[in-house]
């Protein structure tokens, strides 16, 4: 949280190349000089980026460059890792999420997360989706809860496939369905932002296509940040792309710009498959 001084040195040493959108959108999340340390090891070296509202932003870059680490800063999941330490400032709707008086529990209700491997709870499909609304007290009556569950499943394009077996265990679904169940579970607490860490890496191509389609639909109502190792996926689903390398944010801009006319040599090398 020591900000101003650090940013200067960082931006001068590793200037991020930034290409603004032609029609700029309002900023939802504003990260400034974010550094993350795992014990003595530094994983992120001062990352500064604006995440626009109701847009899909993709994080790409070679494995181990810090994409997941940066993503976990947005809902403070790094707090759960022993020895992890975050410096810098992240504003969500202009409020510092690392401020001492911020309630992490409320933050995580506003910033949902979908993990690499589908991780439904060993409960029924219904209970999986109802979990968040229950702990946050979002539904007062049983009917309201059912309503929330059904709309969340609908928004996650899963309802038609599971409407007859809501009481069956969520772990019995196929991988792709499980992942959409996890998305429904995140949607159920009405977040503003949804973080997705390689959500399709454990899925087959058809399931992947369904999830990508879903992401495109969700964009209308949610700010989405997706980490992906597939550049095709970034190109298909995102409007903005950020390229990370060795803990630095090298270049970010409109997705078509990054994939067609990258400015940095390293970005170009990565896009064209010369390393990674």
């Amino acid at each position, binding site marked *: 949280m020591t900000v101003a001084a650090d940013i200067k040195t960082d931006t001068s040493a590793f200037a991020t190349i930034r290409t603004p959108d032609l029609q700029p959108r309002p900023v939802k999340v504003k990260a400034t000089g974010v550094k993350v340390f795992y014990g003595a090891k530094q994983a992120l070296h001062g990352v500064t980026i604006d995440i626009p509202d109701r847009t899909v932003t993709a994080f790409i870059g070679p494995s181990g460059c810090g994409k997941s680490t940066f993503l976990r800063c947005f809902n403070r999941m790094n707090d759960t890792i*022993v020895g992890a330490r975050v410096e810098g400032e992240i504003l969500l709707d202009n409020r510092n999420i690392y401020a001492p008086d911020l309630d992490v*529990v409320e933050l995580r209700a506003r910033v949902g997360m979908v993990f690499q491997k589908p991780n439904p*709870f060993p409960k029924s499909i219904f209970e999986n989706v109802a979990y968040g609304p229950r702990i946050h007290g979002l539904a007062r009556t049983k009917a309201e809860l059912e309503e929330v569950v059904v709309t969340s499943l609908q928004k996650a394009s899963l309802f038609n496939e599971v409407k007859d077996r809501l009481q069956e265990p969520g772990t019995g679904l196929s991988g792709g369905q499980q992942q959409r169940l996890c998305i429904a579970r995140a949607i159920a607490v009405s977040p503003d932002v949804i973080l997705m860490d390689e959500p399709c890496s454990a899925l087959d191509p058809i399931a992947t296509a369904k999830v990508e389609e879903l992401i495109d639909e969700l964009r209308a109502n949610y700010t989405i940040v997706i980490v992906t190792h597939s550049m095709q996926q970034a190109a298909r689903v995102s409007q903005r792309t950020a390229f990370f390398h060795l803990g630095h944010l090298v270049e970010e801009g409109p997705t078509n710009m990054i994939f067609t006319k990258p400015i940095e040599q390293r970005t170009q090398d990565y896009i064209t498959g010369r390393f990674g």
Partner: protein
Amino acid sequence: MGAILVGYALLLVAALSAIAYVLGRTTGARLKPAAGEKIHSLPGYHGAFVAVWVGIPALILVILWAGLQGPVIDRMITASLPAELSSGKSGAEVALLVSEVKNVAAGRMFSEPNPAIVAAAERLNAWESIAGWALLVIVVAIALGSISITRSKLSPRFRARNDVEKTISGLMIACSVVAILTTLGIVVSLVYEASAFFAMVPFHEFLFGLKWEPQIALRADQVAGQGAFGAVPVFVGTLLISAIALVVSVPVGVFTAMYLVEYADERVRAVVKPILEILAGIPTVVFGFFAILVVAPAVREFSMTLGLAASPNSALAAGLVMGIMIIPFVSSLSDDALKAVPRSMRDGSLALGATPAETVVKVLLPAALPGIMGGILLAASRAIGETMIVAMAAGLIATMTINPLDSVTTVTVQIVTLLTGDSEFDSPKTLAAFALGLVLFVVTLTLNIIALRIVRHFREQYE
């Protein structure tokens, strides 16, 4: 004399095997492969092959010999006794004669023995030494025969390595069979003695009778010569103490595990875990002291301040201490069960904005519940079978009560008291111990099987 010779025979077998190994190894090392041929096994395997075929047959012979020599010589002595000594006598009386012969042969004489007995004793000594020497000679003969046969089999393409492998796996099977056979033997003897008991006391009376007074009078004409063998009060006492123990240990153990898994950092864990392991390693007799000297008086005084009467050796005191004893057991099994829940479950819950407590209670605990249940059942089976604490701290009188301040007795305590008095081995009093033991065995076995099933099923679910 005979026993000493058997000992020598075992030493001899060891020495012969060692020699056989060296011979086999040397032969193996000297093997010359034909052109284009490779020697299949290393010399060491050739040595081991010869040694195994010398050692194992000789060993089996020595063991069989040691087992059969006694009975065979006994027979021969019995047959050789002069007719005027043995005629018209029962088997038991003849056996007495034989043992007298043995006493005389060993030099233990209490009075001037009958000359026929002395003669028999001399014969006994002579036969025993003949048998012993015969054993040594036969062992050497077998070893020599084996060495020459096996060494002649050694050749460059001989698969000594595979052969040794087979022998080793056979040896391991034999060892595991020993454990299994011993257990089976215990079960069979338990069932046998218990069935002798049920021949005297009807099965239903034992299982459903409400009165337990096994003290049979020494003389048949004594008043109250009959015992009562209704084991229900004993079962109730056992269940009462075990239930108290579980009421103490389950919450404490499970909460400890939750704390260690979800809240404690590395440093706390590094202190608490070893302490729990120490607790698990305290001999139960020490817990017994603790129960008598500290807990029982405390329970008594506390209940007195409440205006309740507590007996000096209350079920509560024994149960509390037993509960403390099984805390580490419950906590370490729950710890395992909670840790086996994948981290992604926990992350998924935390990422939805659940607090750590909500995560533990709503996600980790339900997911780990089968494993924890299995742990609790194992703990229950330990509590039911636990002997030392209750033998020291619980009572001896079988009262039919569920008042924890009363004195009750348990199955294990009764087994100990029934078997430690001096009374005949075939009285219902002593045999009742086996019947109780059988019940105990069946109950703990059932609990263990169910518990292990649950735990295993749970592991598979997440692996």
